C-alpha cells in the first residue's frame, strides 16, 4: 500500500511519519513536496504530518491549505483516496474544508505535550476499521491549537476518537484542550479523510513507550487489503 507523506516547509513530523510507515509499518512511502501539483499515481494514502507548516503565524494550517499540493490532495480524496491529517495536518484539512469545523487555541492557552487516552467511537472509517468501538488507546498530543469547534451551521461531524479516562469515561478532567464533546479525531462523511490531534507516529515503537499508534496505521492497511478502494 503506497503512502505519501506531505512536507510543507515547516512540517516537522514528516520525517517521523516517514520512518514509522517505512520502517515500522513496513509499507512503501515517499515524500510529497509542497510544490507538487499532483498526488503520484498508485498512492493509496496521503499523510499530512504535524508541525508548523508555514510558521502558523496567521492561523494554524491556513496558508498550507491554500498551497497547490493541498488542492491535489482534495482531488485525491474526492476520488476515494485515504487522507490522514495528524495535528497540524488536521488543522490544514479543516482550513482546506476537507473536514468540517476548526481547531482553535486550547482552553488553557498553553502548548501541551503529554500522553492522553482516546476512545474509539462508532462512526466507520478505514482508520478505525480494525479497532473495536469503545476500545481505549494511549497516544501523545503536542499542540497549542487543538480545541475542536464544529461548524457554526450546527452540523455534527463524524467523530472517530474522543479524549477519555484510561477506563474510557468521558469528562472534563480527561479533555486536554477544551474540545467540544471531547473530540480528538473526526472523519468526513465518507470516512476516507481523517484528522486527529494525537500523534500515532510517536507511539509506534515500544522503545518510545507504546505501540497504540500502530493500531491506527495498521487499520488503514487492513482496510485497504480487505475492502480495497471506495470502488473507483
Amino acid at each position, binding site marked *: 500500500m503506497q503512502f505519501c507523506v506531505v512536507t510543507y516547509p515547516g512540517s516537522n513530523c514528516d520525517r517521523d511519519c516517514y520512518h514509522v510507515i517505512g520502517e515500522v509499518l513496513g509499507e512503501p512511502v515517499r515524500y510529497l513536496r509542497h510544490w507538487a501539483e499532483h498526488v503520484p499515481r498508485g498512492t493509496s494514502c496521503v499523510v499530512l504530518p504535524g508541525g508548523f507548516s508555514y510558521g502558523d503565524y496567521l492561523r494554524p494550517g491556513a496558508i498550507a491549505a491554500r498551497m497547490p499540493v493541498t488542492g491535489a490532495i482534495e482531488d485525491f480524496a474526492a476520488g476515494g483516496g485515504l487522507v490522514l491529517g495528524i495535528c497540524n495536518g488536521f488543522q490544514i484539512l479543516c482550513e482546506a474544508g476537507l473536514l468540517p469545523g476548526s481547531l482553535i487555541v486550547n482552553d488553557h492557552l498553553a502548548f501541551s505535550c503529554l500522553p492522553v487516552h482516546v476512545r474509539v467511537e462508532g462512526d466507520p472509517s478505514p482508520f478505525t476499521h480494525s479497532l473495536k468501538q469503545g476500545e481505549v488507546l494511549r497516544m501523545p498530543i503536542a499542540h497549542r491549537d487543538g480545541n475542536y469547534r464544529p461548524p*457554526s451551521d450546527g452540523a455534527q461531524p463524524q467523530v472517530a476518537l474522543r479524549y477519555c479516562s484510561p477506563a474510557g469515561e468521558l469528562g472534563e478532567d480527561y479533555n486536554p484542550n477544551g474540545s467540544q464533546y471531547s473530540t480528538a479525531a473526526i472523519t468526513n462523511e465518507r470516512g476516507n479523510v481523517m484528522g486527529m490531534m494525537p500523534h500515532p507516529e510517536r507511539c509506534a515503537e515500544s522503545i518510545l513507550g507504546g505501540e497504540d499508534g500502530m493500531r491506527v496505521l495498521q487499520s488503514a492497511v487492513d482496510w485497504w487489503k480487505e475492502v480495497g478502494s471506495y470502488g473507483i
Partner: protein
Amino acid sequence: MERLIFVLMRVVVTLKPGVQDPEGATITDSLQRIGFASVNRVTVGRHFDIEIPGRDEDRIRREVEKMCESLLVNPVLQDYHIERIQGPQPAG
C-alpha cells in the same frame, strides 16, 4: 518620476458571536481579578494593515475583501470588517 500613491486599509477580524474565546475569557478574568470589576466581557481579535498602491478606493476595498475571503479570515469562526486608515496619498 511620479510618487507612488497608495491606500492603507485595515482589516479587523473578530470571532463570531457564540464562538468560544479562551483568550478573551482569560483576559476578562485577569482584569476582574486585578480590580477592574466593571469589565463585563473582553473578546480578542486581530487586525491587518494592508498598503495597496492606487487611487480607486472602491476597487481596493473589493480586492481586500477577496483577500479576507481567500486567506485572512476563517469563515467558520470569524467575522471581519474593513476600515480605510489612510489615503489615497503619496507614499514615504
